[in-house]
């Protein structure tokens, strides 16, 4: 049985949708604890050298651990996770969280592991899934599904549960983006639609016909940044053990997913002067050099390399800027004092370190498209003020460095698992 299809057509999609739909009742009947245990076993398989080449695999394997999944579900369902397995008391009534049914998913190409990640989110709350995988992620997804298929546990009643059983309720496939009829067919099979992607993908999918009851869960185009106040900057620049640890955490946020995730930082606003930003940039570059040595880049798109080399020249020539970079295109830190403006993220370990007189100046440029802001703000009053103002501007997450890419709840302003279920009350 193949769970993944390199190029599906209308007949194939219809057949796969029918197969998946047929597995819905079995899927809905599985205890949540068994599902968590199975995915935990899957995580063990992914955390092996066989998958070491997959970008972001360590993060996925950690996230798939039982405790992590249980925490995700608990946070997402407001502590009512038992409602996934049956009605639970809620004051004078009872509540049940039932799967929505068929979840159609459009996966973005920026993170190779995203298809599996998104599938698990939905499957964990017992949905069946039709997942359109980007062409460039097919090979990685195929390998991961092969590992999942071979994963098995023995449940509390002594019965075996395997990845194969779960995959009876899932199909992964690719079809060309311009095939509007297949997009429409997929959309019309959905009880919920999940879209990860840029503006073009969102516009395409959201314009497709759908059933009235269909729920849309949209993870749209976002980018992320960091705010560093004077105290935080001085700690990093001072190179104390604590400062070095912060730099390590920040650089880990940069390296994970090669800065292609919506939660990856691209611009760090540093309170102070150009000289202050330069010192901070130099410290970060030192840490980037260390971590790049341990975790070298595997490749780079030509266009990205060209963009980085253009910026290196610009920042190398300019009197009021600076640049710290590896001799190869491994990492690049671009320092300026352009003030509270945004720059297009370049990705591939490229950071803008931008001096601003006050972090409060940055607030007006933050829009709902800013997903995560990494905060290194020692001044508690300032941090609280910024948090309140940034929340008003539309930011989704405020975290300390090291946690920017840690998938938690809420994400993009919503509790994902909550959106994957229908709540039923019984009074």
């Amino acid at each position: 049985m193949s769970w993944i299809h390199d190029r599906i057509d209308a007949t194939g999609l219809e057949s796969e949708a029918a197969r998946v739909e047929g597995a819905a009742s079995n899927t809905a009947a599985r205890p949540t604890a068994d599902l968590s245990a199975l995915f935990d076993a899957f995580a063990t398989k992914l955390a092996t050298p066989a998958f070491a080449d997959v970008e972001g695999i360590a993060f996925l394997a950690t996230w798939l651990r039982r405790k992590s999944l249980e925490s995700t579900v608990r946070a997402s369902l407001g502590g009512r996770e038992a409602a996934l397995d049956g009605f639970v008391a809620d004051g004078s009534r009872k509540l049940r969280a039932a799967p929505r049914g068929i979840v159609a998913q459009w996966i973005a190409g920026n993170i190779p592991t995203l298809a599996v990640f998104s599938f698990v989110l939905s499957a964990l709350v017992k949905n069946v899934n039709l997942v359109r995988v980007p062409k460039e992620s097919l090979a990685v997804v195929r390998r991961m599904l092969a590992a999942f298929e071979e994963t098995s546990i023995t449940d509390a009643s002594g019965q075996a549960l395997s990845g194969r059983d779960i995959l009876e309720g899932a199909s992964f496939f690719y079809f060309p983006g311009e095939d509007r009829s297949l997009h429409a067919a997929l959309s019309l099979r959905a009880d919920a639609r999940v879209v990860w992607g840029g503006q073009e993908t969102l516009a395409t999918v959201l314009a497709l016909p759908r059933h009235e009851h269909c729920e849309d869960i949209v993870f749209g185009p976002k980018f992320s940044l960091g705010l560093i106040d004077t105290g935080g900057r001085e700690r990093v620049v001072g190179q104390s053990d604590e400062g070095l640890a912060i730099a390590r955490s920040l650089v880990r946020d940069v390296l994970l997913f090669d800065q292609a995730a919506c939660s990856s930082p691209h611009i760090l606003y540093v309170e102070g002067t150009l000289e202050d930003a330069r010192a901070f940039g130099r410290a970060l570059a030192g840490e980037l050099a260390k971590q790049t040595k341990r975790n070298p880049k595997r490749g780079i798109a030509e266009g990205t390399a060209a963009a980085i080399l253009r910026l290196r020249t610009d920042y190398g020539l300019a009197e009021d800027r600076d640049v710290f970079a590896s001799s190869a295109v491994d990492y690049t830190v671009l320092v300026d004092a352009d003030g509270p403006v945004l720059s297009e993220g370049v990705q591939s370990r490229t950071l803008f370190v931008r001096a601003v007189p006050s972090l409060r100046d940055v607030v007006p440029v933050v829009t709902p498209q800013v997903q995560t802001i990494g905060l290194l703000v020692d001044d508690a009053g300032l941090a609280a003020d910024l948090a309140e103002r940034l929340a008003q501007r539309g930011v989704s997450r405020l975290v300390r460095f090291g946690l920017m890419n840690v998938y938690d709840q809420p994400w993009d302003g919503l509790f994902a698992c909550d959106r994957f279920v229908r709540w039923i009350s019984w009074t």
Partner: protein
Amino acid sequence: MSIMESTSQKSAAPTSTDEDVIALIDQAQFRLDPAEKERRLCAVLSAQVDRHASALPAYARLVDRLGFGNGPRARYEDVPFVHVSAFKKFELRSVPQDKVVRVVTSSATTSGTPSRIHIDKPTSFRQTKALAATLTDVLGKARRPYLVLDAAESNAASSSLSARGAAIRGLLPFASDVTYALDLNGTTLVPNEDRMRAFFDKNADRSPLLFGFTYIVWSVVVAELGRRGTSFGPAPGAALLHSGGWKKLTELAVDKDVFASKVGAIFGMPASHVLDFYGMAEQVGVVFVDCTAGNKHPPDFADVLLRDPLTLDRVRPGEAGLIEVLSILPESYPGQALLTDDVGILVGEDGCACGRRGRHFRIRSRVAQAEVRGCGDTFAQKRVVG
């Protein structure tokens, strides 16, 4: 940021490498052993880099900040490179303003902002000699009737000169007389069929030389004359050199063979006489013309380094890399090593079937722009490119 930073008024000192530069231009081209060529060029390039760095603070900053150090620069990789787009944003001039005899501007087809390259007399002299040295190898020394597939206005006398104008002028040493094939009606280029027919009636059997910008040749000459069903010749000894604008033609799905075939049919010349050359406004005087084997060869006073996009190391034969053009011609601006957004394929380090020595390559395309996809699209409502 001060985009246009003024240069130090300290002029580049008279070059101690002038003789080396001229010697490399004057000698019979394409006969140098590749290792020997790199050794000789690097010696000149090193001295030139130091001179630019002492005259131009911005360039000195770049050399320092990007870790190129003080040399010695024994390999092409050691020569500090400037991304060619910098000439759109910075006034990179290593000589005082009063020494500038001409400012060459690029066509600005991609970004909308032209590069501005400041040329002094020694640089201009070298460029003219260098272009002639390269093209002599391709066209021979005899002067030929010259049909410019452009309007005369493109080569108007001025202190500034477009890349088109510079290229048109570069071929004048090979011309016995010059005819402009197009008229400028307002802002529109229009073929003057009568003038072209008169040119071919008179010169078809005199091995005429034609030149035009690739996109203009295609979109104006081929499109209009093809529509009219016009053709000239036969002119079996004619040759057409063309350059620039491939990006637009690629978008129109026009490949080199189709281009050559259509142009050859209109002018009555073999398609094999339609020769594409690679060059840029930022390095006037350095051109890479297709050889009979279909490869491009750097002349002795220049070279190409095809860099791996990640490691920036030179690629091996058969591999693709970002094209960096090295040249010892520029004295008035730091154009010794210019990294482009073009990708080439290194065919070989030596031993091309055409008989020319040294590195030979082909142009593949502009860099493939990174496809911005996914939830990590770095889209900003108030987008400012840093």
